[in-house]
């Protein structure tokens, strides 16, 4: 009898985890190249509204998702030009990107409040999606859920097993050495930053097109920042990102679920749970300084300017 409940619980957790996983996977690649982009929240919000608007006007979910990714990349490009070409402080630029993205999304979105779109279509594979228990979980969600998991494995393979991944990591760990060997440090950092933007845009689209199917100002509610914390939690290892994102998806779902139960707890207390959990998790991971130092890209956040 509980099987239906368990399946619905797992499905909800997957839905809550997917935007975190998408955004964090993108940021992990960006950071592995040595670029710290704190503008994830802003890129997600712009992705969310642009994807939503494209969906409303074209009726095509595919176009909506693509436009969201392009919007995220456009935001990441602004970040890249400022920090990689103009050597601006990455922390400050990331904050500016979030402030700008919050304002821009609110401005564009003011015409879309109250509009609803149909949710992203669920994969419906005849025969498989109908399987008991596993069917709805493995084959019954929208494509982005599976894409987010596939992206983690693809990124893990890319970083650990591919030649280009090795170059990217080399640039993140020692841009001077990588430059001396002749690798295009700035170009690869641009590409890694754009990838992070595309994934953040995708995460935003998931929020507005699948998670809630409507637009609201500031609808990401700090998920971009939680995604940044997840990268630290995972100590820059993609596999652990999956664990972290699902842990946090679980916490977010639980905080909604508990409020639905009508327990005599103030709802704000429960809503604060994901933010408090983020702090706790950061503390647990960060206290091991050696582990952080071994895994963090050595040039994270440091500007690079080729002499001569």
């Amino acid at each position, binding site marked *: 009898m509980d099987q239906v409940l368990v399946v619905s619980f797992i499905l909800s957790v997957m839905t809550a985890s997917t935007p975190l996983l998408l955004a964090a996977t993108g940021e992990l690649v960006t950071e592995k190249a040595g670029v710290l982009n*704190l503008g994830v929240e802003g890129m997600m919000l712009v992705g969310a509204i642009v994807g939503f608007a494209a969906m409303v006007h074209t009726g095509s979910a595919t176009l909506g998702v693509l436009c969201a990714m392009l919007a995220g990349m456009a935001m990441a490009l*602004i970040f890249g*030009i*400022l920090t990689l070409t*103009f*050597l*601006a*402080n990455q*922390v*400050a*630029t990331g*904050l*500016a*990107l979030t*402030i*700008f*993205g*919050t*304002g*821009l999304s*609110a*401005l564009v979105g*003011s015409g879309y409040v109250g509009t609803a779109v149909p949710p992203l279509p669920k994969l419906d594979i005849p025969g498989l999606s109908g399987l008991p228990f596993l069917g709805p979980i493995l084959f019954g969600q929208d494509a982005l859920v599976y894409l987010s998991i596939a992206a983690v494995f693809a990124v893990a393979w890319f970083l650990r097993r591919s030649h280009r991944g090795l170059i990217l990591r080399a640039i993140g760990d020692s841009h001077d050495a990588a430059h001396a060997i002749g690798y295009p440090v700035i170009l690869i950092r641009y590409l890694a930053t754009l990838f992070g933007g595309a994934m953040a845009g995708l995460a935003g689209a998931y929020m507005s097109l699948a998670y809630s199917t409507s637009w609201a*100002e500031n609808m990401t*509610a*700090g998920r971009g*920042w939680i995604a*940044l*914390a997840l990268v*630290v939690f995972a100590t820059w290892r993609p596999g652990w990102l999956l664990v972290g994102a699902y842990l946090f998806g679980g916490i977010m779902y639980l905080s909604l679920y508990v409020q639905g139960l009508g327990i005599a707890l*103030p709802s*704000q*207390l429960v*809503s*604060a749970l994901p*933010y*408090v959990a*983020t*702090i706790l998790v*950061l*503390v647990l991971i*960060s*206290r091991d*300084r050696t582990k*952080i130092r071994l895994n963090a890209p050595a040039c994270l956040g440091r500007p690079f*300017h080729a*002499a001569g």
Partner: protein
Amino acid sequence: MLRLEPRGAYSRWWTYASPVLAMALTVVTSAIIFSILGKDPLESLYVFLVAPLVSSSGLPELFVKAAPLILIGVGLSLGFRANVWNIGAEGQYTLGAVFAGGLALAYPDAPALLLIPAMIVLGCVGGMVWAAIPAYLRTHWNANEILTSLMLTYVAQLLLIYLVTGPWRDPEGYGFPQTALFSMNATAPILVDGTRVHLGVLVALLAGILGWVVLTRSVIGFQLRVLGQAPRAARFAGFSQNRLIWLSLLTGGGLAGVAGMFEVAGPVGQLTPQISPGYGFTAIIVAFLGRLHPIGVIFGGLILALSYLGGETAQIDLGMPNAVTGIFQGVLLFFLLACDVLILYRLRLPRRAAGGA
């Protein structure tokens, strides 16, 4: 493509010219954004940047809006100099408002001469308490203060909502999520008759001057500057990094708390979920625009205050969403950060390859 060529030395001239250039570029970009939105760019610029100042209450209102920005910005500028990234000032501001507001609601009839100073102290303590958490987590557990201070901002906002919808809600407020209005004794005294210029404006200006003295004339200020510019030298000199982290966060938090106190005791007059239009985040821009210098922060605060007033007039006169303010602020910080490259580098046109075919 343009090339960047290191100057070899730090350009003092560009330190001050860069914000001016950035503001000019922001104004041009805003005009473009206004015309994309289908508004007459010149008229929009007038409404956004000039109209708020020429109205009768313009200048006093500018100072009222600038007060919290200056208070928070001065605190942040000290921390940013030492590379301590407290970006949770919004939460510290909220806690300051909550602590001070709690006192105002508990003792509405206490004499103002006692109540107002007590509220200032409690507001400061509230902000410090909230800033002490990231300071402790950073110094004891190595947790990144950017993320922890930001997460605490969300928690602070939820705490405020809980209080004003729950235990502190005004029983005669028709169920609105807000506390009772503060008593006259708990209201920040007005300094200039006929305006809303309150004690907090004076405190903000004093904080700027005091911050300048601390930064340029004290050992602590010297240590903060060294830690930011040459962390290795600071270590060799034996400056305690942990002490400076605590100091930066507590100063930033305390001043943000005082800003929150004056905002609820002044212009707002009660606790509601909307006690801040994002002052804590805007103050980050104020700090950078003010060159992380407390006196500069005063000017930066006045300029960013104009963006809030302009956003309001644009909303009323042109029917533009309030979000224009956020875009203006974001663009300003973008240009500022980009222009700052000129402090250390020269822009050079690429030289043609000599000889060649």
